[in-house]
C-alpha cells in the first residue's frame, strides 16, 4: 500500500473474467485481471468496484474477492451472451473515472476487443498495456505504458478513460480463502442478454500444434541445389574496418548505433 498514491474521490471499476490455467485448463483468476484489481486497490481502495458479466456461480470469481474485496458485482447472463452490451449499459449509468481490464482474456474468444468496444460505446479514450498509474492531477492521469523489450512510455490521459493492464504491472496480492468465502457476490439481473449469434456458427477444438516453417531451397537446377547444400556461411557484405585510428573506427560504430536508434 502506498498511501501517497491513494485518491479519495476516485472511482475505479475493474472488469474481471474467469481465467484458465494454460497447463491444466482449470478455471482460475485471470492473471491480467488480477493485476488490474491490484492496481485499483492500491490507487483507490474506497472507490473500487469489481465487475463481472456472466455466471455468478463461478467459483474462480471468489479468488478475486479473496484479495480483500468486500463485494463483487456480477451482471448475470448466460455463457453464450455477449458481455459488452451489458457492461456498457451498466457503466453508462455508473460513470466511473477509470475502467481497468486485462489485455486479453484467458478463455473464450480472447480477442482482446472488450476495452476497445467499451471505449467506442462509452466514447472514452482507450489506453493499452499500462504498467502503472503514476499520479492523477487536474483531471488527468499520468500513466506508464509497457512496451516490448522492457521499455516504458509516459502518457497523459484525461479522466475518464478505459485502460488495459499489462503483465508488466505489479503482481497481484495473494488470494485468501476466508475473505473469499465471506465476500458478497451481488448478482444483478440487468434484463438484457444479447446472444452472440456469430459465435454460435464457429467450431472450437483444442489447439493443434502449428507446423514449423521449413527452409525451402528454391533452386531450379541441380547445380544450384548442390551449391546451396555445400555453401559455407560466408559473410555477406559485412563492412570490415582495420588499420585505422581507433577514433575513426569508434565513430563508425557510433554512427551505426545512432542510425539504428538504440542510443538515447
Amino acid at each position: 500500500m502506498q498511501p501517497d498514491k491513494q485518491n479519495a474521490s476516485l472511482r475505479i471499476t475493474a472488469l474481471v473474467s474467469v481465467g484458465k490455467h494454460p497447463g491444466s485448463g482449470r478455471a482460475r483468476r485471470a492473471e491480467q485481471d488480477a493485476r488490474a484489481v491490484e492496481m485499483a486497490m492500491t490507487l483507490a481502495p474506497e472507490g473500487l468496484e469489481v465487475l463481472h458479466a456472466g455466471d455468478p456461480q463461478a467459483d474462480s470469481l471468489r479468488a478475486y474477492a479473496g484479495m480483500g474485496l468486500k463485494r463483487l458485482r456480477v451482471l448475470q447472463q448466460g455463457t453464450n451472451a455477449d458481455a459488452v452490451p451489458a457492461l456498457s449499459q451498466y457503466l453508462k449509468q455508473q460513470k466511473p473515472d477509470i475502467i481497468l481490464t486485462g489485455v486479453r482474456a484467458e478463455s473464450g474468444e480472447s480477442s482482446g476487443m472488450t476495452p476497445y468496444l467499451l471505449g467506442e460505446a462509452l466514447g472514452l479514450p482507450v489506453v493499452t498495456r499500462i504498467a502503472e498509474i503514476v499520479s492523477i492531477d487536474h483531471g488527468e492521469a499520468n500513466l506508464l505504458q509497457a512496451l516490448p523489450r522492457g521499455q516504458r512510455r509516459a502518457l497523459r490521459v484525461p479522466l475518464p478513460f478505459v485502460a488495459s493492464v499489462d503483465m508488466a504491472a505489479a503482481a497481484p496480492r495473494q488470494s485468501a480463502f476466508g475473505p473469499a468465502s465471506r465476500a458478497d457476490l451481488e448478482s444483478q439481473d440487468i434484463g438484457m442478454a444479447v446472444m452472440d449469434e456469430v459465435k454460435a456458427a464457429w467450431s472450437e477444438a483444442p489447439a493443434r500444434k502449428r507446423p514449423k516453417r521449413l527452409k525451402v531451397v528454391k533452386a531450379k537446377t541441380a547445380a544450384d541445389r548442390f551449391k546451396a547444400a555445400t555453401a559455407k556461411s560466408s559473410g555477406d557484405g559485412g563492412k570490415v574496418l582495420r588499420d585505422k585510428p581507433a577514433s575513426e573506427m569508434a565513430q563508425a560504430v557510433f554512427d551505426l548505433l545512432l542510425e539504428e536508434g538504440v542510443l538515447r
Partner: protein
Amino acid sequence: MSEDIIRRDPRAEWIARNRLHPLHQTMQASPAETRGPSGLIRRNPHAVGFIGPNGIKRIDRMNASGPATVGGRRAAGAAKEVELPLHRVENPDYYIAVVPDMVGGRLNGHDKDVIGQAHKLIGEIGGNGAVLTIVFGEHREEAFDKAGVDRLLHLQGDEYEGYSPELRVAALAQVEKEYAPRYWLLPDSVAAGFELGCRLAARIGERPATQAWQVGAEQTICRGAGGTSDITRQTPRLLLLAEECADQIDETRHEVLPVELVGTVAGHASIRDCGQVAVDPNAIPLAEAEFILSAGNGVSDWAQFHQAAEALGATEGASRVAVDDGNMPRFRQVGATGTWVTARVYVAVGISGAIQHMQGIGQCDKVIAINTDVGCDMVKRAALSVIGDSSEVLAELIRLAKAHRQEVVENAA
C-alpha cells in the same frame, strides 16, 4: 586473386574479327539469357555452351568456369544479382490493405508474412487485386518491392510520429472510406499491430479474427482462449495474423506505386505521448533486451567495459569464457547454454564466436564485432567489424557517447 589477371587470347580476338571464320558466331558475345518485353527470361539455346577442342559442343552445367567471353576473360564476381520478374497490377479491381508494424522503421519478418498472406488471398479470390500497404511516419525500408507491396500509402507528418494510435485509426478509417479494401490485414503483435487492429475493428464495426494462423478466402483458423484452442470460423474482413501465417514473397518484384488520401483525416488525440522513460538497461531481461553490449575473452579492462555499457545505455551480456573466468555473472551468458537473445543491435567485444554463441545470437538483426582477429566467425557474421584493440575502441565509444549525451541535453535546454 589469380582470376583477376587479364589474359589475352590472340586467336579468339582474330576469330572475333574474321566474320568468315566458322567459329565466328560462337565467339560473338551474345548473352545466353535476355529479358523479353513481357519480363520473361528468353534463353537462346544456340548461344549456350561452347565448342570444345575437338569440335564438339560442350555445355558446362555446373557453371564452374563462368560465362566465357571473348578473350577468355572470366567475369569477376560471378554472384550477380538476380533480377526478379516484376508483378504489375494496373487498375486494380479491389485492394487488400496491410498495415505493417515497421519496428525500427523497417518491415520485419512478421510484416512480410502478413503481406505474403495478402497475396495468397488475392491468389485465392482471383481477379486484379492489389496489396495496399499503409505506412505511418518516417521509414527506412528500401525493399518494399521485394516484400510484395503493390501500392504504398505513406502518411507523413509530425502528428504520426511517436505514439499516436487515435490519429492513425482516424487515417485508417479514411482509407476505409476511400479505398474500401476487401480485407484488412494486420500483424497480431505486441509492437503496434494488435492495438491498431482492435481500434480499427471497434471503429468500423468489424469483428476481427485474432491470432489467425490459417487463413483462406472462406475459412479462418485462429487461436482462442489464450492460445489453448483453435477456432474455425468464416473469414472476417479484418484479420490480425499470427507470425508465420503465410510464406513471404520472394520470387517477384512489385511496383510500390505511391497513392494518396484525397480527403483530410479528422481525428482528435486525447492521449498525450510524453516520450519514453529511461529504464535501467540491466533491469531488462537479457532475452528481451534491444541493445546488448557483450564481452568475451578479448576484454581485459572490465571496469571500462561496464562504464561503456552504462554510457551507451546497453544491456550487458557475456560469452561463456567471460562467465567461467568469473568476470560476469552466469545469468548474463549469451549462447546456446545461456540465454537466446533477440536484440536488434548486438555489439560483441572480443568475442570470436563459438558456434554455441552464434546460435544464441541467431535472431539478432545487426551485429557489430570489435575484435583483433579478422578471420574469426563473429567478423563473418557481423554487419560492421572493427579490427583493433577493444579497450581503445571502447574508450573512444565512451567519449563519443558522453559527448552525444551532452549535446542532447544542451539541445533540450
